[in-house]
């Protein structure tokens, strides 16, 4: 458990203990000091602890381990370890082009206004389906909307490898078309090897990644 979470847990337990004492001995709150203590313990601390805890949970929900903790996502996790430099998620994960601890979130969030909130709501839906509904087979999972180049350009825009890439500059219309999302990075036949679950069985995996 990260030290910050440990601290939050300690604060939450401390608050619960103080509230427990006040609930067991309501007479404490009769005097002015008791009233102030009750206000801090029964109003300020629960709100503060709730917000800290919520923030910690939100941070945790961005982690790769969180996403891969669902059985349905196991194969997607494995595809990050495919020993093939043309496999897009694997090359990003293995070469730290995305933070390893937040690999899924880095590519599957939306870098737009309320994009983070939108994908969190999608995440809640996934958790609900996983526990209450019938989760689809891993190979049947589809994106809600076509992958937007905006997510790639969030990091690659301005990078030399992108701006001066030979293929990207093969003709003068390519780069503007990529920037305006008219030419998809993923589905235009360029970087189309993404979470290729069909060929995962038997694929060589990068052992050190485990």
């Amino acid at each position: 458990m990260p030290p910050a979470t440990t601290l939050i847990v300690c604060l939450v337990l401390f608050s619960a203990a103080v509230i427990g004492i006040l609930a067991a001995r309501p007479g404490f709150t009769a005097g002015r000091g008791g009233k102030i203590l009750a206000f801090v313990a029964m109003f300020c601390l629960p709100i503060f602890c709730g917000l800290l805890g919520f923030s910690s949970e939100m941070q945790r929900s961005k982690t790769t381990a969180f996403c891969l903790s669902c059985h349905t996502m196991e194969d997607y996790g494995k595809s990050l370890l495919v020993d093939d430099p043309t496999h897009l998620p694997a090359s990003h994960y293995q070469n730290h082009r995305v933070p390893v601890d937040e690999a899924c979130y880095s590519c599957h969030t939306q870098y737009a206004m309320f994009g983070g909130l939108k994908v969190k709501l999608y995440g809640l839906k996934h958790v609900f389906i996983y526990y209450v509904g019938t989760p689809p087979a891993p190979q049947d999972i589809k994106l809600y909307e076509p992958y937007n180049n905006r997510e790639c350009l969030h990091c690659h825009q301005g990078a030399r490898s992108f701006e001066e890439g030979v293929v990207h500059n093969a003709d003068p219309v390519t780069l503007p078309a990529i920037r305006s999302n008219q030419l998809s990075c993923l589905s235009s036949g360029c970087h189309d090897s993404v979470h290729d679950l069909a060929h995962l069985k038997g694929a060589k995996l990068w052992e050190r990644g485990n």
Partner: protein
Amino acid sequence: MLSTNQFEKLLRFAGVCLATGLLIEALCLIWATPIAFIVFVAIGGLLILIGLVVYLYLQVSTPVADD
């Protein structure tokens, strides 16, 4: 206006809701799974909200004592 007995009962109820909600939140922070997030928000958050509302109700329904 609430009698002392009612006040203490409600304060105790608010305290139990808040303490239970906080304990659930602590457990969810330790228990790092996706379902813990749902429990954290749906059960822990709800109990804390109920406790806060009852506590605030107690504050507005109790006459201010002259010091």
